[in-house]
């Protein structure tokens, strides 16, 4: 699988006659900014325009204004799934497919389905709807974006467990910011419009601090601007024309390469997220490489092998291609890019990674700070540079709770 996902806009261009299903993601920065309200408002508008619009899933949260907004819209009944004696309501994807509307609105994209559901994540259900040609309007908060997981942890002290992979958001035809001022949001919270009083108090101590909200809001605005920019670039017929040097844009033709060194160390998850994000912003291709000892001199412990596998899976879920190399030390992964000749893995041509006389094309290597120390003896070749994300697993120091293992999808 390619390490870069074509945007929906890109795939449209090739087949102008058949319009692929459109995905619109309404992006907010906290509960209560008005994502659901806006989503229902759009559904009402589309219905007024005569579009066959249904509500696939909607979480009223007991908010009056929101419930009123849903009046008159067709709701697809949810499906009851019993898990350990408790009934859970989940979106009934099959029922929506049978109903075949033109447009379906789906609340809370980042939701994790209860065990026993057909698919683990709601975004996977949305994918099924899109594949069958149904347009979807959905919503999520910035803190649910996988590549920002560590960042969000630093800002909020909370490890968000429900995430959506970046490539899925990237595949949306539109990402729209649902904005509200932090002041307005805090007022809503105090009035009890967002959560019940005891939950509101708890929320104020975590996400709902003014500085935290401001930081999240800024992140969401920047992310939306970025999403817009990558779609613009994808639609641009040829690079750079009409752009002044004062605001240069990434050129389409030249793609940087980013290589992430995967170890059993928990900080690898952070390297992967950071590498993914860097790749998305720089318009680069991204690879994850681990080195396994080839002559049995040093055997990896079973749990290390499992951890490495987990990290490679995690990378794959973020659409980063993983490779296992034989060798003993991290310098091997560097050699990979330099010396790999013949029998190149299908998607990674040797030329891609090594030949780089083109000075505009740079290659970035993400190592944890431990591994990079082992490398420092071997001076890197010209036009190759190493990026060491000196990032440890955060414990204590400003963050709440114990040192948390980065959430890794298995």
């Amino acid at each position, binding site marked *: 699988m390619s390490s870069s996902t074509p945007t929906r806009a890109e795939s449209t261009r090739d087949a102008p*006659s058949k319009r692929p299903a459109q995905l*619109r993601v309404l992006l907010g920065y906290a509960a209560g900014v008005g994502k659901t309200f806006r989503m229902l408002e759009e559904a009402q508008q589309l219905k007024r325009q005569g579009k066959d619009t249904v509500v696939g899933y909607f979480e009223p949260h007991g908010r009056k204004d929101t419930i009123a907004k849903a009046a008159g819209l067709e709701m697809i009944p949810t499906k009851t799934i019993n898990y350990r004696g408790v009934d859970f309501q989940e979106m009934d994807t099959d029922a929506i497919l049978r109903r075949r509307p033109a447009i379906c609105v789906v609340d809370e994209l980042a939701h994790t389905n209860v065990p026993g559901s057909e698919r683990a994540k709601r975004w996977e259900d949305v994918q099924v709807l899109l594949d069958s040609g149904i347009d979807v309007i959905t919503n999520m908060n910035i803190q649910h974006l996988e590549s920002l997981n560590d*960042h969000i942890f630093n800002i909020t002290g909370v490890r968000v467990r429900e995430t959506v992979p970046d490539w899925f958001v990237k595949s949306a035809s539109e990402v729209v910011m649902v904005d*509200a001022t932090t002041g307005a949001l805090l007022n809503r919270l105090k009035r009890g419009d967002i959560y019940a009083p005891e939950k509101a108090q708890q929320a104020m101590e975590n996400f709902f601090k003014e500085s935290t909200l401001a930081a999240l809001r*800024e992140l969401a605005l920047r992310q939306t601007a970025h999403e817009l920019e990558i779609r613009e670039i994808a639609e641009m017929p040829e690079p750079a024309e009409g752009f*002044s040097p004062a605001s240069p844009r990434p050129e389409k033709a030249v793609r940087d390469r980013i290589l992430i060194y995967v170890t059993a160390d928990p900080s690898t998850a952070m390297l992967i997220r950071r590498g993914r994000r860097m790749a998305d912003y720089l318009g680069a291709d991204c690879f994850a490489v681990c080195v396994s000892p080839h002559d049995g001199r040093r055997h990896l412990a079973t749990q290390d092998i499992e951890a490495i596998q987990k990290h490679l899976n995690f990378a794959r879920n973020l659409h980063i291609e993983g490779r296992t190399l034989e060798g003993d030390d991290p310098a091997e992964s560097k050699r990979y890019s330099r010396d790999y000749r013949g029998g190149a893995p299908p998607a990674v041509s040797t030329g891609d990674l090594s030949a780089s006389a083109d000075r505009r094309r740079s290659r970035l290597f993400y190592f944890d*700070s431990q591994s990079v120390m082992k490398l*420092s003896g071997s001076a890197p070749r010209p036009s190759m*540079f*190493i990026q060491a994300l000196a990032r440890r697993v955060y414990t204590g120091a400003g963050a709440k709770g114990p040192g948390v293992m980065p959430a890794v999808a298995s």
Partner: protein
Amino acid sequence: MATDSPHRPTPDQLLAEVELEEIRKRRGRLKVFLGYASGVGKSFQMLDEARRRRERGEDVVVCALQPEYPPEVRAILQKLEIIPMLKMGGAEAIDVAAVIRRHPQVAVIDGLAYDNPPGSPNAHRWQDVEQLLDAGISVMASLNLQYLEKLQEEVERITGKRASCTIPRGFLDRSSDEIVVVDAPAIDSLSRGIAAADSATRLAEGHKLSRLRELALLVAASVIDRQLESYLRSHGMDWSWGVQERILVCVTPKSSTAQMLESGRRNADRFQGEFYVIYVQQPALSQHDRTVLEQNLDYARQLGAQVEILTGLDAAEAILKFAREKGITQIFIGHSMPQGAWRRLWSNLIERIIRFAEGIDVVVYPHPR
């Protein structure tokens, strides 16, 4: 941690903030609904908020309207109190005197960037708004991005047009308490049918709108960034998380740094981030070194970097201290140094930076030999 923070405000700073806060309390608050074009839904969002506020018991009055509205907005207006505008020779102006007499908690102004008709006390509507704010009335106002003076050049580059009436630089920076972005797709793909004839002009228009849209989002982000920074400073908190990417390139006299500077510039552009270049002073530079260094720093300035020269016996410490103060997220540093003792010192420096730059990407940049 906070006690020795470099951001700990001085007493003077604190005093200035307190005085500013006093002025803010007497003044009304301004909330601007910023949209990137007309028709994105600014009026709807603002007037709907006005309605909700009124239903909660706030004293909200509308004092400037657009000439025409779609049905869903007209329905909202019926629930709001309106102070009619003054008609002067075919043009309209806010009846400032009437609004001040009525003295509501909140005055709603749909369309901030208008010039008043000749003969009005104020030439521009934004001056009316200042007057209302000074009178202690809060204002909600809608604004189209292209009327912001400070964005004129960029908007002109995108649209080829220059707006006639503008909101001056500093108006939003000075008194805008809040800014909300009203965002919507440039071309609505959902209400559009299958392959609805995307003519070239329509697509070009879409691209222009997308760029304006991006500009609006980034303007709001930078306003929030400034507010966040001053909030953290006034609360004596550490600026420890870079929401915005900030790129720092460390230059030396000997290295050929052009490529590293260009690469740093490119990263800053792609992340819409900030770009710093520093040089840590070293003892006894030769004439040749000094010339090369000056060339490097000149080039950095040409690329729009914020250039600073640091002093300090320990270069690694100086670099890291600077990085933490500015909230740097990526450090670029050249790898190779001349032979001999310097070389060992330099590798040692890089190692220390990597080890202690927690949370910062360190890019070790090779130099061609």
